[in-house]
């Protein structure tokens, strides 16, 4: 039998979902090419988890349609379940079972043996192999993450659905985790990953910015950032908070927000950095510095979320 060839590993068309009076998703459409890594970027409550629940066929959408691995999420929900590996937004393994017991249990759910598929998880699982009898609940955050990923991958899914996999994990483990995802992508796996960390977005092939249940924008991270224009400036002074308030009061400033150690200023039409810093000096601010900044996904997000 010829295998059905699909270019879109995930295809979502105008999906909506309502929980009571809350519109969790509104007319969401996007698609993920096979073998690529797609990022859903948005804050908590943006609707990411709802989208995952729909794609993993736990809940049905109110409107719209979607396919995963070429299979309809409503009609073929049983077939989809064998094709996807899902990692929920919080640690969802059995804390009182050991590393090995968890892994073998999840393998048995899919009717596969750990031995046959171990090669897929071996690159990152070797650290865990050292303590196979440690209870999952006693592992560190990064280790838990690896075990959860191992359990999600043990049946060799075609598509990996990761819902905020790096929330609550330290920076080193986060970076390691994304390295593991890159290795999996190279092996041809399609990955849909959501995150509220904007810096992680750059590691995806394509990203969708999502907020309030709607997709704000969608493209490669580079193009999204490039499309922002060059009206962004860093601003700093000795007293940051009064500076923020003062800048927000100026009519040339569209928006101003804290960004790391400095302020990001979205410049309006007649924004002149020299003139502004002179004016700020006159207002009593010391060490005023204003210089062009390179826009980031976070700036774009704030811009889009503000407009929406």
């Amino acid at each position, binding site marked *: 039998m010829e295998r059905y060839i699909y270019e879109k590993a995930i295809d979502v068309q105008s999906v909506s979902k309502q929980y009571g009076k809350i519109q969790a998703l509104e007319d969401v459409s996007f698609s993920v090419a096979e073998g690529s890594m797609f990022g859903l970027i948005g804050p908590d409550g943006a609707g990411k988890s709802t989208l995952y629940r729909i794609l*993993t*066929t*736990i809940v049905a959408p109110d409107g719209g349609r979607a396919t995963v691995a070429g299979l309809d999420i409503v009609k073929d929900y*049983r077939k989809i*379940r*064998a094709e*996807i590996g*899902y990692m*929920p937004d*919080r*640690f*969802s*393994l*059995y*804390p*009182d*079972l050991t590393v090995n*017991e968890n892994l*073998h*249990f*999840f393998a*048995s*759910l*899919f*009717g596969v043996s750990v031995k046959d598929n171990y090669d897929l998880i071996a690159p990152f699982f070797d650290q865990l192999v050292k303590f196979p009898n440690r209870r999952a609940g006693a592992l560190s955050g990064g280790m838990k993450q690896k075990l959860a990923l191992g*359990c999600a991958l043990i049946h060799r899914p075609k598509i990996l659905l990761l819902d905020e996999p790096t929330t609550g994990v330290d920076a080193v483990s986060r970076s390691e985790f994304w390295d593991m995802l890159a290795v999996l992508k190279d092996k041809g796996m399609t990955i849909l990953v959501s995150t509220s960390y904007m810096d992680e977005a750059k590691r995806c092939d394509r990203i969708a910015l999502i907020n309030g249940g709607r997709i704000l924008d969608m493209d490669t991270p580079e193009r999204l950032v490039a499309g922002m224009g060059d009206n962004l400036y860093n601003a700093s002074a000795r007293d940051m908070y009064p500076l923020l308030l003062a800048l927000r009061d100026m009519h040339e400033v569209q928006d101003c927000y804290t960004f790391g150690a400095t302020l990001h200023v979205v410049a309006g039409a007649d924004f002149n950095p020299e003139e502004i810093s002179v004016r700020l000096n006159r207002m009593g601010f010391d060490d005023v510095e204003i210089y062009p900044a390179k826009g980031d996904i976070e700036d774009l997000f704030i811009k889009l979320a503000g407009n929406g």
Partner: protein
Amino acid sequence: MPVFISMIKKEALHLMRDSRTMTVVLIMPLVLLLLFGFAISTEVNNVNVVAVVHRHDDASRELIEKLRANPYFTFKGIVPFCEVEPMLRKGEVDAAVILDCDKGATAYQIIVDASNPSIGQTATGYMESVINGGMVSPVSVRTLYNPRLKSAYNFVPGIMGMIFILICAMMTSVSIVSEKETGTMNLLLVSPVRPRTIILGKIVPYFILSCVILALMLAIAYSVLGLPLSSNIVNVVWVSLLYIVLALLLGLFISTIVSTQVTALLVSGVLLMLPVIMLSGMIFPIENMPSLLQYVSCVIPARWYISAMRTLMIQQLPVSYVVTEVSVLSGMALAVLFLAVKKFNIIQ
């Protein structure tokens, strides 16, 4: 069916890791049975009694001998009349019998401490029967099924009715809800495993555990507590299994309506345990309840189970005498199964 086997294995691991719960679950039924069988009994034993004798004669000597020989009484000696009241007040004695001579015949008076009415009543009854012992009574009494009126006989069915609701319903609901809480239920539902396999994988281990407890309790009841053993035990076992299944389904149903372990505990505790203790006839006879509560007791599974167990275990009657109870329990099981499956599907 390897998925099913590994689900059961996983559940067994959960149970074994939680050694405290496991100990409680296995020890509690035995402790309860032994407690109610021996320590807590409604029989009245060791009634302390004194006698006031105005004239020593054959009748008085005979009565005192009888009181001495009777296992229910502890005879504390002969005292002058004026000491009786202080002794009763101090609680040194529970009853006094006063023998007086009235125109040649012996007259008896019983003074009893009725601050605990059941002890007072029973002691009076015992004493009357001791005094009347020599005479031929026009009423002949035969106590059937439990000739020695042992209260253990009464409590065994009651405790079984309570334990199975506790273990089956509470533990099943808590274990399913805990999977909901940790999110593992979502992972199970996202896997290709069918929901009915998930549910069976949750229920079967607790069914096995309940069978072990049933065996333990029956062993204690028939050996230590001395319940009459007969071939009727087969009926006792299968009616108990039916009740266990019903309790498991109740637990399943509870798990579909609540979302946290604490609520599951509260719901199965308050909604199941309390009515079982108060309204099932385990402690308070149903016949003594106000008629409204009698109707309420009809919806409590333990009421029917306890009544069936009394018929089968104590009266030793054949199964045709518990048809009503068995059909009510089966009907309840089907209804709860229907509700639970319906609720479970709505969640999907």
